[in-house]
């Protein structure tokens, strides 16, 4: 059994590649982040919420990546440096191999990562299965989830520590009580989890205390993903055995008044991307061997709805970031975006099954063989995006 907390005090283990999964719950509007400005139908379908085509004179215009795609101006500040350094790639037309317009169902599907026809009601999550494959002779492998409860992605036999980083409340457990608690759990079946939990909790608490004293970090807005990510980066830096990390970000269900260059969605996107920037910064040299995937359970409707928002759709855009990737490109299979190209005349079609995409990335990132990969993503066919 891997026991993170006990190993933390041990000499540094040989660093291995790291994977962080950033899950956007609620179905983010991919077409507002990676804008298909080269498609006339995009402007036709979204008269009120489309981002203006690239125009150096217009600060509210999208910022071009190539002849077809551009970035939302609120994300370009944080993401352009990654793009220019080839540390960022986008995979549009990505999604699940089944159609569910239900958040909970689609989220579970994504997190469990089973084959589309399996329809599992429960079971292990793909990150836990990945952990099982990584926990081998090369060293301890464990995962960490920066959430109050263990997300389905991490459900399974491998123990995983979890603690949320978004709050500002520093809960206290006095050391005397903690010592007595540990004495009660000495040699108990839960001892490892108790140590992991107390250890991670204490560490986060210390970090929050430090932040209070350091003006620079206090400057990040409370409750922001940027603040959460900076904390995440520092924790990961300190603990190389945390090979897999999970965090989720909510607030993407923009059915009404989502705005364009400004507005609710714009703020969410800015916070998200500033968070990714903060994560990379805090990771420092660790960023080189870190792979980050950002995705959502589904995309939103191609056309805006009657309340200047968008409804639940299907295909979405997956982001890949990492210090060691050959990015700076739009990858995966691409389709047309005319009115006749939409899935059910409504959504971005899915041409890249997300499990195939993740399987391809993780196979290369961790050197997983075919059999190991089949245990993590049953019946997936790994897709090589040429990023690693």
């Amino acid at each position, binding site marked *: 059994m891997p026991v993170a907390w006990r190993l933390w005090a041990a000499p540094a283990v040989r660093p291995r590649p790291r994977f962080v999964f950033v899950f956007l719950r609620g179905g983010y509007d991919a077409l507002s982040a990676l804008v298909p400005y080269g498609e006339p139908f995009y402007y036709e379908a979204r008269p009120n919420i489309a981002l203006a085509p690239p125009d150096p004179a217009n600060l509210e215009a999208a910022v071009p990546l190539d002849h077809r795609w551009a970035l939302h101006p609120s994300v370009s500040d944080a993401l352009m440096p990654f793009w220019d350094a080839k540390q960022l790639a986008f995979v549009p037309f990505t999604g699940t191999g089944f159609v569910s317009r239900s958040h909970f169902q689609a989220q579970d599907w994504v997190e469990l990562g089973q084959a589309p026809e399996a329809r599992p009601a429960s079971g292990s999550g793909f990150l836990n299965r990945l952990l099982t494959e990584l926990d081998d002779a090369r060293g301890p492998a464990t995962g960490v989830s920066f959430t109050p409860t263990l997300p389905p992605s991490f459900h399974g036999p491998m*123990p*995983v*520590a*979890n603690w949320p980083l978004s709050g500002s409340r520093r809960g206290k457990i006095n050391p005397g*009580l903690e010592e007595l608690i540990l004495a009660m759990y000495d*040699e108990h079946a839960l001892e490892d989890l108790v140590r992991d*939990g107390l250890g*991670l909790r204490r560490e986060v608490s210390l970090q929050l205390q430090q932040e209070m004293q350091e003006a620079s970090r206090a400057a990040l807005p409370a409750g922001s993903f940027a603040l959460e990510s900076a904390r995440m980066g520092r924790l990961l830096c300190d603990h190389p055995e945390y090979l897999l990390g999970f965090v989720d970000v909510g607030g993407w269900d923009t059915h009404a008044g989502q705005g364009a260059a400004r507005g609710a969605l714009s703020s969410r996107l800015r916070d998200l991307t500033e968070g990714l920037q903060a994560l990379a910064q805090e990771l420092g040299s660790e960023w080189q061997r870190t792979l980050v995937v950002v995705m959502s359970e589904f995309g939103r409707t191609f056309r805006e709805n009657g309340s200047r928002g968008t409804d639940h759709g299907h295909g979405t855009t997956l982001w890949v970031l990492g210090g060691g990737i050959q990015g700076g490109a739009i990858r995966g299979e691409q389709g047309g975006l005319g009115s006749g190209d939409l899935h059910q005349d409504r959504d971005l079609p899915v041409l890249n099954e997300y499990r195939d995409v993740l399987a391809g990335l993780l196979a290369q990132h961790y050197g997983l063989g075919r059999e190991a990969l089949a245990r993590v993503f049953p019946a997936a066919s790994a897709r090589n995006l040429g990023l690693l």
Partner: protein
Amino acid sequence: MMRLTATPAAQAMSEYRQRSAEITAIQDADQRRLAESELREARRLLVMEYSGGFFRRLVSQPADGVEALVWFWFNHFNVLWQNDLVGAALPSYIDEVLRPNAEGRFRDLLLGTMTHPAMLVYLDNTRNGSGKMNENYARELLELHTLGVNGGYNQADVRETARILTGAGLRPLEPVQWAPKQVPHLVQRGEFLFDPRRHDFGRKDLLGQTIPGKGFGELEALADRLSRHPATARHLAGKLCLFLVGEGSPPALAEEAARIFRETSGNLAAVLGPIRERLNRRDAPGLKTFKEPQRWLTSALALLSGGVPVKNAQLPLGWLSALGQGLFSCRTPDGYSLRGGDWLSAGQLAQRFELAPQIVNTLPRLAETAMPPEQIRASPAVGALEATLGPKSRQALTRAKGDAGRLALLISSPEFMYW
């Protein structure tokens, strides 16, 4: 400040709908947003106050009492109060459908949920109409509420179920001129309306039987069919055993309960008989289940309050949210997991350790009559629990700081994490 009427329970739903409609008509966008947020706040307040009362009753009753069963049924027929009308419909859903039927006939309970706005809105059946089908509710009705995921139905059954459910939704706010031939088919109860204009009157073939198209009667036939199905008996009996007896519940007990369910066509009082009997004898070793957050918290409160009612439930409700099992707050239709093991995580344990001293220190102020730690510490319940502790926990207790420290340690002990 805007308030929604709390009693009678169904009143809030009507007010919420009326107000929503008025808000939609507001021209000025800023004013509209303001009105929307006021309505949301009123809905939040209603749910908060209702939750407080519910929680107080839950803590004051035994683990197999009526409120616990109501909790079970809410969890089984879960809805999300943040979802539009659902919050305003929550008191009616619980007080008028779940509680009256909690130990009655499963068929009535089921039909009650099938015709309640809370469920119909939450699972999108208000958008399910003839020719414009939405299968969301139909699927969950079979998978979660009745037959269970391996209950032997297929996609065609989901489709036929959805067809039966077409037209079950909300009454229009504007008056409707009904055609004479539609009038006999109308069924309206408060905000619920079976709308024959939206119903698919064709014949349905469900689970190997035919249900002739006859309107609302199809919903009753569906409730009958599903509650008499052996898969439903198996599914429900298993869940009740898991909830009341825990993960160590013997398979024979679930079989017995399922048999009674089948033979009585879902008479819940009869089904609960042998389960309760078993519950009262569940001291056999090896049957321990990790307490889900609510069970841990309510058992701690019961232990520490010495039977004195809690007058302010808002803090405990906050603790419950911190532990990840906020009351009426599960976002997914499958409800919270009843398997204790699913709740076991490093963060869950650490969160309990962090809350334990807070609970011990705050509780005397929450109870109707304050109980100082030394008095709680001397109570028979605490004495009885301490007697069951293993040597390591007992040893640690002797080193605790003061009575409060000792009580915090007690509810943090490994023994107290299991039931």
